[in-house]
């Protein structure tokens, strides 16, 4: 019902929008709509297992309302469906899919000519499911998020689009269906702990991002405070400390056209730390007296989730004509866990090394600009996943995949 009400509000706003188009000139529009839709569908052929298909749908419907030259309001609805596809290691199964709705309203005010502030609010709802017959409403990782933002843009070079943006975001994130199955099995007594909400958290994000002459970069700091989830102590039981995660990301990139070569590479480096630890049970009901042995049935791993990740993305388009382009690119994601040892195929830890995953994607394709507002892509990708972790009962770590996809995009 909430979705219907919000959509009707958006419809009402859009309804009034059209009146202004008729009465104002192109350059002085009070209302400017924004529409962006991308459809893609692909076939995926993994080195091990059956081929499968999956798609992505992104739809954004927005409206910029200029109240007066210094004040405007921007509303945006965002729908994103992500279907089956190859996934980075330690993330999710190939067949997992998600569906999210996001609503954002942002107020934009020009304080002086070179300074703009943008406070805003945001609500999003995300569904996740792992099987075709699982209802969207019952997904273990379904999520609701509500929060606000304060952003400021400082324009230091109008000629070369030089902007320094500072942004603070906060979100109250809830996972209404999440529960710890192991805890339910082991201690049906403490029902308050297992009745959901274990992943509920407050997420905060501070970033500073400079942009100049089509070069851009940024420093982002994210911290997540879990409301209920507690940290596992070295004795393998939950202690009193609540979980806290932190992310620091540095990124840099540019988007330039040199003759017929269009390049937009980005490099980023992320340091993720969490005070949460991990206990690996080899089977339900396993027990052990030595939690520090990599081969025992129960093993405690301190700092299991800490990692450093390098992400290098180099897409290149060769502009053959004004409508046709050949595209290619390489994307490398390398994640090195700082404390987590790799596991062998028998689920035993090797404490002499640390887990390292690499996912490399090499792609090539053709892009055609169909008209002023739409384009079409056909793309082939070779994906190579490699890791020194060879325990792959639940998630694939070492695989090769081929995919061919078509995509259709429209932006107005």
């Amino acid at each position, binding site marked *: 019902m909430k979705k*219907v009400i919000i959509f009707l509000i958006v419809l009402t706003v859009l309804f009034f929008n059209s*009146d202004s188009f008729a009465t104002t000139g192109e350059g002085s529009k009070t209302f400017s709509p924004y*529409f962006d839709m991308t459809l893609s569908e692909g076939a995926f052929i993994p080195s091990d297992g059956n081929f499968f298909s999956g*798609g992505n749908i992104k*739809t954004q419907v927005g409206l910029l309302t200029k109240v007066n030259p210094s004040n405007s309001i921007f509303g945006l609805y965002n729908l994103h469906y992500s279907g089956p596809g190859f996934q980075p290691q330690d993330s999710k199964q190939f067949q997992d899919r998600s569906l999210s709705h996001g609503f954002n309203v942002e107020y934009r005010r020009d304080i002086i000519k070179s300074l703009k502030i943008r406070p805003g609010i945001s609500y999003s709802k995300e569904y996740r499911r792992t099987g075709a017959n699982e209802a969207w409403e019952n997904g273990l990782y379904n999520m609701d998020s509500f929060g606000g933002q304060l952003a400021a843009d400082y324009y230091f070079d109008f000629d070369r689009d030089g902007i320094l943006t500072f942004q603070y975001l906060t979100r109250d994130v809830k996972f209404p269906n999440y529960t710890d199955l192991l805890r339910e099995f082991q201690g049906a007594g403490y029902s308050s702990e297992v009745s959901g909400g274990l992943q509920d958290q407050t997420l905060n994000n501070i970033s500073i991002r400079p942009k100049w002459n089509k070069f851009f970069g940024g420093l982002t700091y994210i911290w997540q405070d879990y409301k209920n989830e507690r940290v596992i102590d070295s004795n393998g039981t939950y202690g009193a400390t609540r979980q806290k995660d932190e992310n620091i990301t540095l990124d840099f990139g540019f988007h330039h056209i040199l003759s017929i070569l269009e390049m937009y590479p980005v490099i980023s480096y992320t340091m993720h730390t969490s005070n949460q630890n991990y206990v690996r049970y080899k089977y339900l009901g396993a027990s052990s007296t030595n939690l520090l042995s990599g081969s025992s049935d129960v093993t405690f791993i301190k700092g299991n989730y800490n990692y450093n990740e390098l992400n290098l993305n180099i897409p290149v388009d060769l502009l053959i004509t004004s409508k046709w382009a050949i595209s290619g690119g390489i994307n490398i994601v390398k994640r090195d866990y700082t404390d987590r040892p790799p596991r062998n195929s028998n689920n035993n830890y090797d404490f002499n090394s640390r887990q390292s995953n690499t996912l490399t994607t090499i792609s090539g394709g053709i892009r055609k600009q169909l*008209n002023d507002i*739409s384009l079409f892509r056909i793309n082939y990708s070779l994906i190579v996943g490699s890791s020194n972790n060879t325990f792959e009962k639940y998630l694939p770590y070492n695989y090769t995949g081929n995919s061919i996809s078509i995509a259709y995009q429209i932006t107005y």
Partner: protein
Amino acid sequence: MKKTIIYAFILSIIMPCISYASSIDLGAKATQLAGEIIANPTAFFYEFQQDLETTTPLPPGKTYGFQTGIFPTLLPATYANLSGKYRLHGEGRISPGLPQLDIAGGYWNMIATKIATEQSKDINSLDFSGYYIDLIMSSSVSPKIRTFYGYKYSQLKASLKLNKAVDIAGAQVTSFDAGFRDDFLIAGIEHITSINKFWSIQMNYGIKEQVLASKISWYGKYFEFGLNIYPEGILVIHPVVNFHLNF
């Protein structure tokens, strides 16, 4: 030279695909698809219903129109179908800039079920049918581009009555009534490419069952050619041909 590069590039894409095609187990995939259809047959047939539904606005200047789905609805699915569309308000008619508002609806009935009923002694009645109604609001954002938004109620009905009970998974069944319905929100954009030639892209989202459908359509005076994508469906991509007349 450019052509050579392009051909070489296309070949470099096709060759790996051919080499991997031999590793594809089509039999297993077919079994999986059959299992999904059996698990939820109404959802499968519901996708064909969406293929015949008209959810784009009437062309500017037209007052009413008719449409019938040809492929994959009439052929091969034997959906006899007819849709109608009527313009309630022309853009800017009452007040400058006030959007165009269209109402549309349609009905279909599966001919194959009628034939099956007549030829079988065990089936008393078998009905596979559906209907829908929608409201589409469209507004020009430039001389060649319109955005449109709308609401659609869509219902599929399936009922079976047998002359004698049959055993299905241990239960004695003499009849069943099933169906599938949802309330859809629609958002799309239409671009006119030349006189009487349009293409559009739209998203249909069912808010009760989280049904997702995306439609890309090219249409002219008589025919509409489309690619409907049902990302959670069994046959994900439906090529679609509809015939329409607008007056």
